């Protein structure tokens, strides 16, 4: 057990009604309508001049009661809802949900379906990381990468659209496999994309990786140690940037990930710059996985035998996948009926956001923006 982090006490949010020399403690409210909070996150900053003494996150503005909805819909009906949580990585959400229910039903998705799932999920990871990079760079003041990443993300969304008709909330998978067979030219499209992207990633890196201002803005900003990460339950690239080589795709493989050869990029310092590098490397590794998957795409059925009316035996199961943001888990309790008795989603953004306070203490206001960006949160997932 690592030395537990001293728990940040809740801020005293009294009005700074002091005069003269005491007056430098300032409460600044960021959001919920603020360009840098990536949605409707409200952050209350307690400042000493520009130095952050502490933050408090106020969340829930986007709460839609997804878990309650899940308990009142059948298993198949709830499937599209999960796309609405992390809406920039909807495919990952769907994969996690489908696999969990499959586990509960004791159904195995066919091999071909698993390969298609891996391809689409990794494409989605790329899309999510590209969106993250663009907005993160924009927060730090570099406008241009945003447009480059959106240009390339568009290609991914086009593949999604061709595959299932939707771009963002794809509902790409069904419980038991995939509903759609790949369209004609799917392999060609994906291969073209895999060849097309690496130079683009080089282009982003050229703009940022060695840019002095970028390095100064991100190095040693929002540092978090591996021990703190584990204690706070932080997962995903944030954990890996702190030096923990842990990725559910490797640790507890799911879908077809055990078939592929890829590396887990790891950082050393756990600062914003390392997280940036880790995510950039992850994009390259995703491309590697996609290439292997599309080249070895097996023939066969895409749907396992799943009863029309799904009534999983009573029991409970927790299953998690490595979403672009971290560990995305589903805990489903079945009572043998057509609806889940309890549907719990373990969102990575929600847990990761908790680390914000620890990461920005003692840093400057501008760093809060950088750190919110580097945590890569999606408020739809935080609030559910």
């Amino acid at each position, binding site marked *: 057990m690592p030395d537990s982090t001293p728990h940040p006490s809740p801020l005293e949010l009294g009005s700074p009604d*002091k*005069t*003269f020399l005491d*007056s*430098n403690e300032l409460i600044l409210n960021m959001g919920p309508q603020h360009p840098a909070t990536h949605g409707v996150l409200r952050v209350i900053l307690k400042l000493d001049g520009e130095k952050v003494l502490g933050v408090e996150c106020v969340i829930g503005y986007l709460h839609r009661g997804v878990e309650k909805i899940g308990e009142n819909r059948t298993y198949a009906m709830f499937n599209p809802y999960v796309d609405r949580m992390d809406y920039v990585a909807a495919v990952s959400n769907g994969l996690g949900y489908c696999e969990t229910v499959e586990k509960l039903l004791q159904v195995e998705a066919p091999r071909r379906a698993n390969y298609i799932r891996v391809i689409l999920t990794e494409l989605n990871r790329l899309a999510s990381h590209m969106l993250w990079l663009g907005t993160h760079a924009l927060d730090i003041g570099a406008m241009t990468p945003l447009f480059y990443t959106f240009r390339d993300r568009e290609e991914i969304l086009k593949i999604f659209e061709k595959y299932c008709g939707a771009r963002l909330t794809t509902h790409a998978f069904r419980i038991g496999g995939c509903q759609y067979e790949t369209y004609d030219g799917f392999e060609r499209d994906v291969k073209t994309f895999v060849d097309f992207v690496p130079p683009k990633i080089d282009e982003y890196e050229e703009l940022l990786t060695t840019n002095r201002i970028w390095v100064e803005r991100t190095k040693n900003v929002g540092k978090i140690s591996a021990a703190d990460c584990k204690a706070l339950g932080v997962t995903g690239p944030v954990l890996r940037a702190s030096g923990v080589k842990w990725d559910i795709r490797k640790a507890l493989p799911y879908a077809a990930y055990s078939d592929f050869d890829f590396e887990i990029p790891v950082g050393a310092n756990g600062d914003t710059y390392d997280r940036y590098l880790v995510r950039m490397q992850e994009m390259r590794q995703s491309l590697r996985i996609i290439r292997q998957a599309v080249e070895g795409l097996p023939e066969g059925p895409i749907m396992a035998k799943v009863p029309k009316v799904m009534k999983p035996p009573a029991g409970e199961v927790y299953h998690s996948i490595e979403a672009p943001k971290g560990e995305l888990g589903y805990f489903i309790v079945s009572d043998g009926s057509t609806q889940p008795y309890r549907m719990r989603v373990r969102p990575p953004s929600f847990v990761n956001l908790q680390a914000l306070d620890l990461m920005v203490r003692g840093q400057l206001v501008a760093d809060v923006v950088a750190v919110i960006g580097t945590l890569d949160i999606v408020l739809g997932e935080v609030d559910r």
Partner: protein
Amino acid sequence: MTPVATPFFFYFLAALTLLSAILVITRKNAVHSALALILGLLAQAGLYLMLYAPFVAGVQIILYAGGIMVLFLFVIMLVNLERSQKEEQFNRQWLVGSLAATALGGLLVAVFIKGKALFPTSSTQIAEASNTQQVGELLYGQYMFPFEIASLLLLVAIIGAVVMAKKRI
């Protein structure tokens, strides 16, 4: 070079200076006072210009209006002003104050009348084109020593300020 409407500008600037000086002490809001002070300083810079001392006017604008007053405003803005607005602006010592003011005014008038000889009656006009150069020569030639002393004094003040500020960090 023929000056245009000199008396008008002189009286205009003089009136502006006086008006802003009065505003400085009568405004309750410290920021307004500071702004009035800036206006006064700018009017003074205009007066310097009329005296064919463009260098002094320029320095006046850069240092006083542009530099010092910004720092003034900084401090005023950071300090809570609510209290000062509620407080009474003038205290009860107006009798003593006006006495002192009269005395000072009398002194100035007396000096002006008695010591008329001290003031040059015909202004020796410095050529505008080389005004700056002459100021420089005076500063670095005749008044070298006092100039250096003054800069040393400022250096001491800067170091003192840094030391005092550091203690709080």
